[in-house]
């Protein structure tokens, strides 16, 4: 299968990647394997760390699964793999951990005229910036530091891994108002399009490239000691958009550009970076992830005529209040509603239903899912992934604007979990987790009893949640 290299730049990039991973885990369709590359000088950024850990879990889980014709399971179907030799999906920026920007540019080795030019372009504050936690909303710093990308070993590895048939694609996620993302996106794009040095420079420079640029959707609390100031977000956005117009859209170096933003903004704590920069998941990030999927699923020929521009719109914005599936457009609903519902049902079962005696159920016994399985590494990873998923839903639900498709903490009645969708129920018959177990215990058609336990486990839950979703909701 062709690959889509997804460059997530900065904090936004990491968070969008996280949403993307969640969607892929739930089985949202993607026609390409994903190769994430995180570009963020702040390697201790909590968002990045969370995303990296999530992707590792995804890979561990997926490595135990097969997706042959006979398998119906779509959970974790899309492949996620790092660039060869790239550690933890991260493109490591050299020389940003110790010292300031002035040290990076070797200020003290510059001649006077160059120094003067530098002083004109960069403020003292900029020159004294500690780059360990990123560029703190200064794309001017970022655009210098990120130049090293083109000559890095990681780029060479990326290039070597690119498919010869030219069908692999690239997608870049960045925020337009930040520091790392704002500077990194155009630089990365230029580097790729102007590649003449790498082994596969021709296919790379001619491949389909898409990007999502995330407009301001949150602010930070005012902190005079912090270099991050959300009052500059709009002005920076404007500057960047002007630049994109001439240097990106204008020269057709991109095949598809997705814009996403929101007038309703949340306010986060002002944190310059590091492990403190841990923002709650936001609906915008999910929409940005949808952009990635849209690009991956668009046929080749539709990306041929210059840069296509895309925006995202809600069917109904509910006057700025919390959103559910009912407020989304049909295309979005069609692509994410059923997979997310299935995945959340699995999540609820593993959190609340399993403890009611899942191990003694027929589905467990028939598939050799015994103590050794449920105390094993695979199941542990699945549970951990689901905890992250649960947390992701809760963060989106408490954010502003809130996205609450599910009552994420619902225990009983189980099937009233989808907000805005009343489940069908029978007066007589099994309910809640009993019904779930009953469905899991079904005699499945074409069941491959010889598959691995991990395979069977995931297949079971996929099929059962699919049946329950069909039965309960008219989606």
């Amino acid at each position: 299968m062709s690959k889509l290299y997804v460059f997530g730049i900065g904090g936004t990039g990491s968070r969008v990647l996280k949403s993307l991973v969640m969607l892929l885990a739930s089985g949202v369709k993607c026609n390409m394997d994903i190769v994430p590359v995180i570009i963020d000088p702040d390697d201790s950024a909590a968002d990045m760390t969370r995303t990296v850990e999530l992707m590792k879990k995804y890979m561990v889980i997926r490595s135990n699964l097969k997706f042959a014709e006979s398998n119906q399971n779509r959970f974790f179907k899309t492949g996620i793999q790092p660039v060869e030799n790239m550690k933890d999906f991260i493109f490591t920026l050299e020389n940003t951990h110790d010292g300031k920007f002035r040290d990076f540019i070797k200020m003290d080795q510059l001649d006077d005229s160059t120094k003067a030019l530098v002083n004109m372009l960069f403020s003292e504050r900029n020159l004294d910036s500690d780059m360990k936690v990123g560029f703190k909303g200064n794309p001017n710093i970022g655009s210098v530091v990120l130049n090293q990308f083109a000559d890095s070993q990681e780029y060479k590895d990326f290039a070597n891994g690119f498919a010869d048939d030219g069908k692999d694609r690239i997608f870049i996620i960045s925020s337009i108002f930040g520091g790392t993302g704002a500077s990194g996106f155009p630089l990365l794009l230029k580097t790729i399009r102007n590649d003449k040095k790498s082994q596969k420079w021709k296919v790379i420079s001619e491949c389909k490239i898409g990007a999502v640029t995330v407009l301001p959707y949150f602010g930070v609390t005012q902190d005079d000691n912090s270099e991050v100031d959300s009052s500059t977000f709009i002005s920076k956005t404007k500057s960047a958009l002007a630049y994109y117009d001439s240097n990106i859209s204008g020269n057709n170096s991109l095949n598809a550009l997705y814009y996403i933003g929101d007038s309703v903004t949340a306010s986060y704590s002002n944190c310059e970076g590091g492990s403190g920069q841990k923002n709650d998941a936001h609906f915008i990030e999910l929409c940005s992830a949808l952009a990635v999927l849209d690009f991956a699923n668009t046929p080749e020929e539709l990306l041929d005529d210059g840069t296509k521009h895309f925006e995202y719109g809600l069917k109904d914005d509910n006057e700025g209040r919390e959103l559910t599936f009912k407020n989304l457009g049909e295309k979005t609903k069609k692509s994410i509603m059923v997979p997310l519902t299935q995945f959340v049902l699995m999540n609820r079962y593993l959190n609340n239903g399993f403890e009611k005696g899942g191990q003694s159920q027929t589905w467990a016994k028939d598939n050799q899912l015994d103590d050794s399985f449920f105390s094993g590494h695979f199941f542990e990873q699945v549970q951990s992934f689901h905890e992250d998923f649960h947390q992701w839903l809760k963060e989106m639900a408490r954010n502003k604007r809130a996205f609450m498709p599910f009552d994420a903490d619902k225990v009983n009645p189980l099937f009233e979990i989808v907000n805005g969708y009343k489940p069908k129920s029978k007066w007589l018959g099994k309910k809640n987790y009993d019904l779930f177990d009953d469905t899991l215990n079904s005699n499945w058609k074409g069941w491959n009893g010889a598959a691995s336990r991990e395979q069977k486990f995931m297949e079971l839950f996929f099929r059962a949640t699919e049946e329950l979703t069909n039965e309960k909701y008219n989606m």
Partner: protein
Amino acid sequence: MNFFDFFYRWKSFYGVQLYEHMKGYDDALMDYNPDFNQFPSLFLWTIGIVVAVFVLYYYIINSTRLVKWWHWLISMAIVAGLTYWVGFRTVIVDVNNGTVTPSLQSYVGYNSALMFGIYNMMLAMVFYFVFTLLFRRWSRNCKHSPWELLTTKLNNRKK
């Protein structure tokens, strides 16, 4: 010995004379009167209870929450209780109504009814166990109650 009598042939447990009575011994004929033979209906009541509880547990209630071995044991206890009562009552009614043939009357009393109830209960429990062994495999949720199916165990062991 006809088919139904066969299951009650351990006469020494509950009394040979009670066996004669239940088989329909009639002093007037000095022989068994087939019209008085209570074994067929008693056996069918007993089997009926076994089948009903079995079907209820494994196929109608078929609950995902009643899959432990003690749940099965409770269903077995229900079978035991009902079939004990059926057996006991069958005899005690005859004792109280004085319909035991005179030559057997002094041998058939409350204790006989008690022992017969216990016998009928044990018979039912054996049948319930056999039904469990043979017919639970098609139950969606309870087929591994009270213990894992042998076929599943063997299959799992092969893997």
